[in-house]
């Protein structure tokens, strides 16, 4: 009986211990005798990463975090055990990030070129890069930080919504309804205008198309003229035409020079004519005013009659002189 007790208790202890240890090792995915490679990465902060956190390469679990220790210069070194046969990407870096919304973290080994455009991540990688065989690493913001930012944004949105709610009273609603109605009418008009303009555009487009066709025809004619021009050039006709044109131009230049001289003379004659006219005008005004002999003669009939009478008498006198010269001319010598 005593031996049976000993056996039963011993068996229970052995079985219980073995089962418990085996289950624990299975859950922990412990492996004995496998040739695992180890890489070390440097971080400023490892966030929520713990011993056993999975290491992922191209989305596939490829190992786990085996150890972490504080290093100098405010860095943390994380030792990662990789499964046999895992090949690292070129220029590898390690990103620590949450793999779900429930606090799970993972270490992602990726290429430096595949990091993306996050300036903070690039800065962390640059700061943790050394030529000592340790991979540079960066820690992405966790959900809590992102949620905090989202919370602030939500707060701002709520504030804005509250202000809108305050501002959006019945009067504002009525005005908005009126605005919407006006906008609807305006849209109708705009649509109508667009339709009309569309027709105009269609017409204009047709005109432009016709113009372009005319241009094409003109271009064809011009091409034909050019071809003819080329053929004419070969017989010397153009040279003769050009020579004639040059002679005509020379004659035109000569005519132009003569016209310029004539114009200068005319200008001078005009000046003189203007002076004569001014003088004549002055004389005419004096005559008109009865000034001077001629004015008095013109404006005084008596004087005219006297003058006329005197002229008649003078004619009579001249006739008498011619008839009787001795009466009036007495030529003596001594």
């Amino acid at each position, binding site marked *: 009986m*005593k031996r049976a*007790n*000993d056996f*039963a*208790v*011993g068996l*229970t*202890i052995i*079985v*219980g*211990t073995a*089962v*418990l240890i085996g*289950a*624990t090792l299975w*859950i*922990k*995915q412990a492996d004995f005798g496998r040739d695992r490679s180890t890489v070390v990465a440097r971080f400023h902060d490892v966030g929520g990463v*713990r011993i*056993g956190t999975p290491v992922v390469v191209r989305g596939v679990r490829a190992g786990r975090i085996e150890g972490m220790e504080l290093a100098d210069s405010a860095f943390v070194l994380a030792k990662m055990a990789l499964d046999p046969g895992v090949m690292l990407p070129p220029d590898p870096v390690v990103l620590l990030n949450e793999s*779900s919304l*429930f606090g*799970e973290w993972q270490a992602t080994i990726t290429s430096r070129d595949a990091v993306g455009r996050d300036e903070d991540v690039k800065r962390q990688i640059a700061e943790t890069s050394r030529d000592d065989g340790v991979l540079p690493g960066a820690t992405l913001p966790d959900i809590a930080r992102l949620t905090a930012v989202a919370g602030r944004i939500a707060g701002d949105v709520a504030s804005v919504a509250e202000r809108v709610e305050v501002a959006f009273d019945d009067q504002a609603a009525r005005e908005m309804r009126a605005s919407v109605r006006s906008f609807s009418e305006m849209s109708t008009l705009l649509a109508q205008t667009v339709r009309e303009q569309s027709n105009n555009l269609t017409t204009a487009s047709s005109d432009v198309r016709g113009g372009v066709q005319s241009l094409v025809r003109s271009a064809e004619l011009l091409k034909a003229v050019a071809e003819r021009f080329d053929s004419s050039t070969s017989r010397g006709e153009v040279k003769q035409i050009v020579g004639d044109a040059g002679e005509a131009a020379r004659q035109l230049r000569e005519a132009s020079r003569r016209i310029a001289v004539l114009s200068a003379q005319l200008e001078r004659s005009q000046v003189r004519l203007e002076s004569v006219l001014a003088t004549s005008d002055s004389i005419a005004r004096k005559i008109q005013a009865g000034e001077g002999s001629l004015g008095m003669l013109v404006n005084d009939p008596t004087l005219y009659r006297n003058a006329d009478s005197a002229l008649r008498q003078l004619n009579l006198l001249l006739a008498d002189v011619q008839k009787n010269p001795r009466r009036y001319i007495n030529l003596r010598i001594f």
Partner: protein
Amino acid sequence: MTTAQGITTLGRWGRERVEGLGRSGRFVGDTLVAARDVATWWPQATLHARTLGVSSLPIALYIALFTGIVLSLLASYSFTGAVPLYFVGTLVEKTITMELAPVLTGLALAGRVGANIAAELGTMKVTEQVDALETLAYDPLAYLVVPRVLAGTLMFPIVVGLAMVVGVAAGWLASILLLGISSEEFVKGLRLFFTVFDVRYGLVKSASFGTAVAWIGCMQGLGARGGAQGVGRAATSAVVYSAVVILVLDAFWAVVWLLGSNP
């Protein structure tokens, strides 16, 4: 009642409470001293280990089996639409390993083992078998208490460890068969936040429960008075005190190990 009588009553009540603590402390101290008498308690150790441990396996595993099933169903009911179902594995592992397997097994064994010890030792006490042992120059503490306490301390973690495995396995099977969760999903959740600390915490806690249940059963049994009625009272007290102490120790370990820790 005069003022003097009131003060006297209060003093008597306080003295009885302190006397109870003092008797318990002295009993523990005397047991530790008696543990030096290895030749007396060693031959009895495996007998009590079988009685307390091996014979308790069926009830412990039965409890763990159904606890795992219910936990997985409860988890899926709570997580529907909000949390990925692979967290069923996480919840089953954490809850079974750290809390339910040690506490439920401890409470079940408090009823079975504590009552058994109290009734057995109480009967020996009221039938003066304990006095006979003393007459035969056996230290009753070394012969009766030490092997039971050692058996409880050793075998409780074994029983609870197996209960952990059975409970998690039951939850796993229930998740696959009843909830439609794939085995890979459950294992993913199982491994997600698993640490060796979870198992260590549960085992250390269960060892303390085993020690407490055996000690309380022995103390209540050896303190039995007045025949069969006294034995019955001792068994009842052993179960009640064991259950209370198990819950107190549960809170104690949570405060000591979990509060502020980040394993």
